[in-house]
């Protein structure tokens, strides 16, 4: 089913604040099998010039996933048919333990590709103080029946 083109350009309210913890960063690093001490040891992170342990480059997906706006039935998105098409992160600085962040997402593109529907969601990940940490570009593809 075609996605609702009225959603192109629509922005959603900021997500609830999410506090990035050392424990969650370590859990994520364990899950991707990455032993880098900069994700685990505050001293190693400081030696590399960071105030605390930093998160792996793909960690922001943890906070940017689960956009409530995409659950709006009026969008006509069938999650059972969705595959992840593309993903990009543009970093101002690494996310680190102690950051409290919110995500603000905008649907920037919806178009048909053959029998599939493609949608791009841009998200600003900012600290509650307003510092931009990264922009994420999430492209999903809803497979046609």
């Amino acid at each position, binding site marked *: 089913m075609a996605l609702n083109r009225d959603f192109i350009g629509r922005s959603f309210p900021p997500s609830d604040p999410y506090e990035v913890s050392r424990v969650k960063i370590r859990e994520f690093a364990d*899950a991707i*099998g990455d032993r880098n001490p*900069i994700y685990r040891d505050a001293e190693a992170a400081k030696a590399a010039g960071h105030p605390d342990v*930093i998160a792996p*480059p793909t960690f922001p997906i943890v906070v940017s996933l689960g956009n409530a706006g995409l659950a709006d039935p009026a969008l006509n998105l069938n999650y*059972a048919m969705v*595959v992840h098409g593309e993903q990009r992160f543009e970093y101002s600085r690494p996310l680190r333990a102690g950051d409290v962040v919110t995500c603000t997402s905008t649907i920037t593109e919806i178009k048909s590709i053959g029998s599939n529907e493609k949608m791009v969601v841009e998200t600003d990940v900012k600290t509650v103080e307003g510092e931009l940490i990264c922009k994420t570009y999430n492209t999903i593809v809803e497979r046609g029946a």
Partner: protein
Amino acid sequence: MTAKVNYADVEVGTEIPAQSYPVDRMNLVMYAGASGDFNPIHWRESFAKAVGLPDVIAHGMFTMAQGGRFVTDWAGDPGAVVDYGVRFSSPVVVPDEGGATLEISGKVEEKLDDNKVVVALTAKSADQKVLTRAKAVVRLA
């Protein structure tokens, strides 16, 4: 934030040696828990097959994370990565017995100003390209 690779020491075409990353079902269960993506196509074989997949497949973001690990292990400091993007071209199929292997290699594709370089990644599993247009911009020392 200090990368361990010097900008002056790399050229366009400099190759980053290939690495192999094993992937098994346990990794996918851990990744589901850590990321919050509990889509059953990543851990329940009967569900994956019912929706037309050959078997359980890895989270695209798990594969992207392995590419990120490849780049940050080379650069030294993960904070040196300023941009990272991929297209998911083919799923990584992870059988119950034996799992799968990701083969990742890289090459410096372009030198930018401000000590930045563009690294192009190649990621394959079972001889299929699983990522395309995979590029990271890294600020070197």
